[in-house]
């Protein structure tokens, strides 16, 4: 190992902090996007070629078309995931929790709820840092209800859920999920704010003095942001691809072999009790969007109603036992119960609404 003196690399420091986007990066970016677009347009032909020429299956057979559909769906969802996760990764490099806190600190309650729910989509959030984030928010004067709007929206409305819903059921279902997810976050947060539950936050929280850390986002340069996007792709896509493939495979199998409407009686829109049941089963379950959408797809294809299934999906993603255990450090049981209750009822109402409106026809296929 060569023993280079660390001081020799000092000129690295002199790099201008606000470096602009280098020309080379722009060119590579445009070329990659064009390549992505071309490839995406050819996915149908590619999956046919692999199925019938490379593997050598016969056209118009049961197996042949199953394999073709499986390949097409998998490639489509994976390509969408890579692009969206990369884009969202770059967007997120602009929205640190510190930055979001600054935006929210000056907002009044109702408008604050809306902003908090929207910022929940773009701010990087992991339930493992829910506690420091919660304390950071409430100790800088952000109302409790506004903080909850953020905590509800951040895990529930995320790019993976939206991409998978778009890829499998089309943009209408994805938009419906986005819209109703935001609505629940805004309204539930607002209601919790109205209930004046500040005394049910653990006492030490408000006694805590939040230190002042420098906003790390200001140091980010464009190459770092792009690196951030690439890291997000490596991290997220690397983690979720097995679920996606398994889910599409299970879905394809169910499509081909399970009897139609097998679930219509117990999870169809006429079974009124199936919505609360789906929510109650969903609350303690913990999974990310990638793990749950395959189940969604399977349930829908067997005749379950859209409202029931979306309610199940939302309660699994938005409310989870591990997150409640983490939040117990800062919230008293009564507030946790209120949180679960308000969000659960919101999800329940959305489920019923979808079933009554009979939105099932929105699903492609």
């Amino acid at each position, binding site marked *: *190992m060569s*023993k280079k003196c*660390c*001081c020799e*690399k*000092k000129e*690295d*420091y002199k790099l201008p902090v606000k470096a602009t986007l280098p020309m080379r990066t722009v060119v590579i970016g445009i070329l990659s996007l064009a390549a992505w677009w071309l490839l995406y347009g050819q996915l149908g032909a590619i999956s046919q070629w692999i199925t019938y020429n490379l593997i050598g299956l016969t056209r118009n057979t049961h197996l042949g078309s199953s394999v073709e559909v499986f390949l097409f769906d998998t490639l489509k969802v994976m390509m969408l995931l890579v692009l969206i996760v990369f884009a969202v990764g770059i967007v997120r490099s602009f929205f*640190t*929790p*510190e930055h979001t*806190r600054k935006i929210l600190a000056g907002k009044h309650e109702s408008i604050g709820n809306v902003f908090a729910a929207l910022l929940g989509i773009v701010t*990087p*959030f*992991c339930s*493992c*840092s829910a*506690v*420091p*984030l919660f*304390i*950071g*928010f409430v*100790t800088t004067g952000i109302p409790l209800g506004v903080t909850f709007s953020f905590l509800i929206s951040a895990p529930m409305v995320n790019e993976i859920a939206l991409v998978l819903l778009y890829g499998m059921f089309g943009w209408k279902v994805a938009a419906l999920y986005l819209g109703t997810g935001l609505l629940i976050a805004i309204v539930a947060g607002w209601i919790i704010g109205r209930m004046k539950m500040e005394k049910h936050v653990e006492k*030490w929280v408000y006694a*805590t*003095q*939040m*230190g*002042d*850390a*420098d906003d*790390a986002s200001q140091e980010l340069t464009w190459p770092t942001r792009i*690196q*951030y996007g690439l*890291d997000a792709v490596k991290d997220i896509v690397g983690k979720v691809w097995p679920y996606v493939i398994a889910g599409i495979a299970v879905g394809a199998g169910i499509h081909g072999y399970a009897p139609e409407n097998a679930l219509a009686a117990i999870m169809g829109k006429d079974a009124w009790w199936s919505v609360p049941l789906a929510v109650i089963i969903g609350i303690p379950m913990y999974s990310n969007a990638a793990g749950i959408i395959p189940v969604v797809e399977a349930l829908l294809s067997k005749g379950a109603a859209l409202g029931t299934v979306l309610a199940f999906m939302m309660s699994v993603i938005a409310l989870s036992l591990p997150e409640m255990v983490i939040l117990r*450090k800062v919230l008293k049981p009564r507030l946790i119960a209120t949180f679960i209750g308000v969000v659960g009822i919101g999800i329940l109402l959305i489920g019923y609404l979808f079933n009554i409106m009979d939105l099932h026809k929105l699903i492609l296929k």
Partner: protein
Amino acid sequence: MKITVYGSGCAKCKQTEELIKRVVAETGVNAEVVKVSDIREMIAAGIMSTPAVAVDGTMKISGRVPNADEIKKWISG
């Protein structure tokens, strides 16, 4: 030099700590790597997202895992 890694024990926090220890060992810089997992201490330092890293009390990064080059820059200062 004192490098503080703040993290509640999530996978990324462990990854950050290991990477920093490796880079410190590789570069031979005289630095002590400390892991802080107490929430109150994190709050006192002004951290809202983990993993976060401070070098001699100055916050360098929060909310993501740094790469080896970034760590080298911090410790070669």
